């Protein structure tokens, strides 16, 4: 147990080492003008692949070799609250023993839970400014380890895949999408090593977010992830579309980060710490973290603002208004941090950067869309979950709901194979946020992990297709399953997984299991709150219907039917094994990662499953219904209570029904072509145009933000400067002239001569006197400094003697 932080640190730092080696070994010589031979560039990819694969092995060892034997899942029942009496006596000092008696026998009435098992500590103190301590620390719980395994495994697959995919960069490249001013295409050196250099940095940053022990460190790696995505999206920097897309991703993320900084400030100024968990100090006491401050044990682990928050709030409140007891502050902090997550995870209104990010090479899209960048936002929401008030959770749920619906509608009409997947990612992220916002902590993160597997699979498959036909446009594909069977059938698995196909209550693809718990949570939320809250059930179901529809539309258009472009079809070929291998591996995980092994399995395998794993990481104070304070009618339901039959049965059937209906619809339209897509397009003309133009979000932002900014600057430059300021100055001049005339005629000549002129003269004289001080002579300046030092010292001494000391 003790070496767990060290091992994870190694897994975390390995990609950094690989980055450093490639940077020093290849990029620096290249900067210095040396030509690095392509045969040696190949070694760079082996270094990066080796680092990440080794990182995965270490992470897997940490999970199966250290963590699970120490805290076996078999000991905990599905209802996590029954485990503590076993675990309380064990290694973890954090588990409160008193908690064991609290749980009641009835399934529904839970006392809320204590903190999960975790290890927290600081590796290094970077700096200390007053009470602000900037540390590099760790906070390791089951979620951290699960994320480590997921990120390193998927990144390994994508790294290996990229060795094949980026093969073009191993010789000089002629970029046909860039036309120079002389009409020729851009001819440049390949940049194989640079790609892997950024990839390593990217993995390092993401792992840093996962292991980070405090919000300040999270923020650092958060920005690092942002800059890496900027580098990678703009990998083909000479293409105008790529560089603007990189800029867009970076700038849109800054908008969200602004909110995040507000959240950080609100938290720090009232809690005085950034660290998540309690950290052991050298003298044996504990330095308390945010979570335990907000969820006092004496308070039964319920979320409650600290005294400082209440005082702060009271000091800002006007007389007579209802006291909010710091709830508003907590709400602002939560929503602020969620703003950052909104940017990273591409939630409505900041979702526009993600589809543009398709300009990067496909492995980048796969990494960004599954394991790293967008996962970071959802992960952070899951990590800081204890600080969210029910009202903040409602905001998250609403945003997630809007996102999943909008993105799904856009995906239906997109024809670029990668853009369909991009909007599908946005939509699935909306599902996760919705689940988290409705109180389904496990549901949201479970979907994050299953989605990471099948979405990376889908992206790599699409990359394989693009590699084969050299086009992104699905209208130029078709029938490709004869040419590239491995890609076609692994992608089919991915589509089935994302659609959520399975046999209800028995077994299914991974997406089936995770989507099921989300729908369960939504239905439970609807049952608890009633009224409009059923929208949170209807919209995700509609989203799921559209998901299966557009995914199978994609598959049919690409792989089924007749080839539409024979030239491209004839040149298509199956990808080499270095690309197909990861596809098969990821397909296996896309099928099985949602499964839970039965109780009877031996050792650590007993009851092993992502859902059970995550259940042991449930943050403090998340069991039991949570009631809103600002909105008294709001109830965030208990997640465990969502697994009862009254919820489970309608959820399971409705989820599978919409999935099958979506597939059926796609089959009717795109495979059998009973109804032609063109006629549908005509019937739903307005809707079609809205989705085809992505609900005009880009145009809207261009109109609302970009153009006004440009217009304002233009306005300031011309209208304001010329028109306003100049005219003000002119009018002042005119008024002064008038006044002067009045004064000259009416005013007292003598007074003017003797006051104004004297002042002017004295100022002039003073200026002349002071001017001689500015001699420009360096040596005289030195003398001034010395003399003034002496004078200051004497004054200070005298003042001390007579004024202060008495």
């Amino acid at each position, binding site marked *: 147990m003790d070496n767990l932080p060290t091992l994870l640190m190694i897994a975390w730092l390995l990609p950094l080492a690989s980055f450093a080696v490639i940077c020093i070994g290849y990029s620096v010589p290249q900067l210095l003008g040396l030509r690095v031979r392509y045969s040696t560039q190949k070694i760079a990819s082996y270094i990066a692949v080796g680092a990440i694969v080794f990182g995965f092995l270490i992470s897997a060892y940490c999970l199966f070799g250290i963590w699970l034997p120490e805290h076996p899942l078999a000991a905990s029942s599905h209802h996590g609250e029954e485990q503590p009496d076993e675990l309380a006596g064990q290694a973890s000092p954090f588990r409160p023993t008193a908690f064991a008696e609290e749980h009641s026998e009835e399934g529904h009435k839970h006392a809320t839970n204590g903190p999960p098992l975790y290890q927290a500590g600081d590796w290094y103190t970077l700096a200390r400014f007053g009470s602000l301590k900037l540390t590099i620390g760790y906070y390791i719980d089951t979620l951290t380890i699960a994320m480590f395994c997921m990120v390193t495994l998927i990144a390994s697959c994508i790294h290996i895949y990229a060795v094949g995919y980026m093969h073009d960069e191993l010789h000089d490249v002629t970029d046909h999408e860039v036309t120079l001013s002389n009409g020729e295409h851009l001819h440049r050196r390949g940049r194989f090593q640079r790609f892997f250099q950024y990839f390593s940095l990217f993995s390092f940053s993401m792992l840093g977010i996962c292991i980070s022990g405090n919000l300040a460190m999270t923020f650092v790696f958060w920005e690092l992830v942002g800059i890496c995505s900027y580098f990678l999206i703009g990998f083909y920097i000479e293409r105008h579309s790529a560089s603007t897309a990189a800029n867009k991703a970076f700038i849109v993320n800054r908008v969200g980060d602004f909110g995040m900084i507000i959240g950080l400030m609100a938290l720090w100024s009232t809690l005085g710490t950034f660290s998540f968990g309690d950290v052991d100090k050298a003298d044996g006491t504990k330095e308390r973290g945010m979570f335990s401050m907000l969820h006092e044990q004496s308070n039964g682990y319920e979320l409650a603002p600290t005294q400082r928050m209440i005082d702060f709030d009271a000091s800002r409140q006007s007389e007579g208004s209802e006291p909010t007891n710091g709830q508003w502050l907590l709400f602002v902090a939560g929503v602020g941090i969620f703003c950052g997550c909104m940017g990273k995870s591409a939630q409505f209104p900041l979702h526009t950067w993600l589809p543009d990010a398709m300009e990067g090479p496909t492995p980048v899209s796969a990494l960004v869309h599954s394991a790293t960048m967008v996962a970071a936002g959802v992960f952070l929401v899951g990590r800081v979950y204890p600080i969210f008030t029910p009202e903040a959770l409602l905001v998250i749920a609403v945003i997630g709901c809007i996102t999943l619906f909008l993105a799904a509608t856009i995906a239906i009409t997109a024809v670029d194979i990668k853009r369909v997947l991009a909007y599908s990612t946005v939509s699935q992220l909306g599902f996760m946020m919705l689940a988290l916002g409705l109180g389904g902590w496990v549901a949201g993160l479970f979907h994050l992990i299953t989605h990471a597997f099948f979405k990376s699979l889908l992206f790599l498959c699409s990359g394989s297709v693009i590699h084969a036909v050299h086009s992104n446009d699905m209208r130029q594909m078709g029938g490709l399953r004869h040419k590239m069977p491995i890609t076609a059938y692994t992608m089919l698995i991915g589509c089935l997984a994302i659609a959520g196909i399975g046999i209800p209550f028995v077994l299914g693809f991974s997406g089936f299991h995770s989507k099921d718990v989300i729908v369960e949570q939504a239905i439970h939320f609807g049952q608890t709150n009633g009224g409009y809250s059923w929208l949170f059930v209807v919209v995700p179901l509609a989203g799921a219907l559209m998901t299966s529809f557009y995914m199978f539309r994609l598959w049919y258009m690409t792989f089924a039917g007749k080839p539409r472009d024979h030239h491209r079809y004839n040149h298509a070929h199956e990808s080499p094994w270095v690309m197909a291998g990861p596809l098969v591996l990821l397909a296996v995980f896309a099928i099985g990662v949602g499964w839970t092994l039965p109780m009877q399995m031996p050792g650590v395998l007993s009851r092993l499953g992502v859902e059970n794993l995550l259940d042991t990481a449930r943050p403090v104070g998340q069991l039991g219904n949570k009631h809103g304070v600002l909105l008294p009618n709001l109830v965030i339901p208990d997640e465990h209570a969502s697994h009862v039959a009254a919820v489970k049965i309608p959820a399971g059937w409705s989820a599978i029904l919409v999935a099958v209906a979506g597939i059926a619809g796609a089959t009717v339209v795109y495979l059998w072509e009973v109804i032609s897509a063109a006629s549908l397009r005509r019937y739903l003309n307005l809707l079609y145009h809205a989705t085809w133009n992505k609900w005009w979000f880009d145009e809207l932002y261009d109109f609302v933000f970009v153009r006004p900014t440009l217009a304002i600057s233009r306005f300031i430059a011309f209208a304001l400067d010329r028109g306003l300021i100049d005219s003000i100055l002119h009018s002042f001049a005119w008024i002064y002239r008038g006044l002067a005339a009045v004064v000259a005629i009416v005013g007292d000549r003598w007074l003017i001569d003797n006051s104004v002129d004297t002042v002017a003269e004295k100022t002039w004289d003073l200026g002349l006197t*002071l001017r001689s*001080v*500015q001699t420009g002579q*360096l040596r005289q300046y*030195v003398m001034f400094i010395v003399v003034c030092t002496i004078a200051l010292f004497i004054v200070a001494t005298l003042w001390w003697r007579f004024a202060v000391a008495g």
Partner: protein
Amino acid sequence: MMPLFANILTEPVGVAHYLVVGAVLFVCGALCMATKRNAIGVLLGIELVLNGANLNFIAFGSRYLRDSQGTIGLDGQLMSLFVIVLAAAEAAVALAIALNFYNSFSSIDVDQADQLQG
């Protein structure tokens, strides 16, 4: 003042003694800056001033010169290390400026660098 010098050869020295030496270096440096017309001479003065300050840092950080409760410990030595490094950097930049000055005025008399006079 006398008791400090009376038995200086038979008793250990204290922080105050170092401060005196530091003061001498500092004042010499300041005077150098104030009287030399040669730009390089001014530079030499700066080096002396920095050394005077350095000596004080070392004295305050030394365990041999006063009670170890009162010393600033290793921080003093670290500070003086940083001062040494920055002095090296400063010398490089100042020399570059001096050379530039020499190139444009064919002289390194700082009295000629008075374009900024009022």
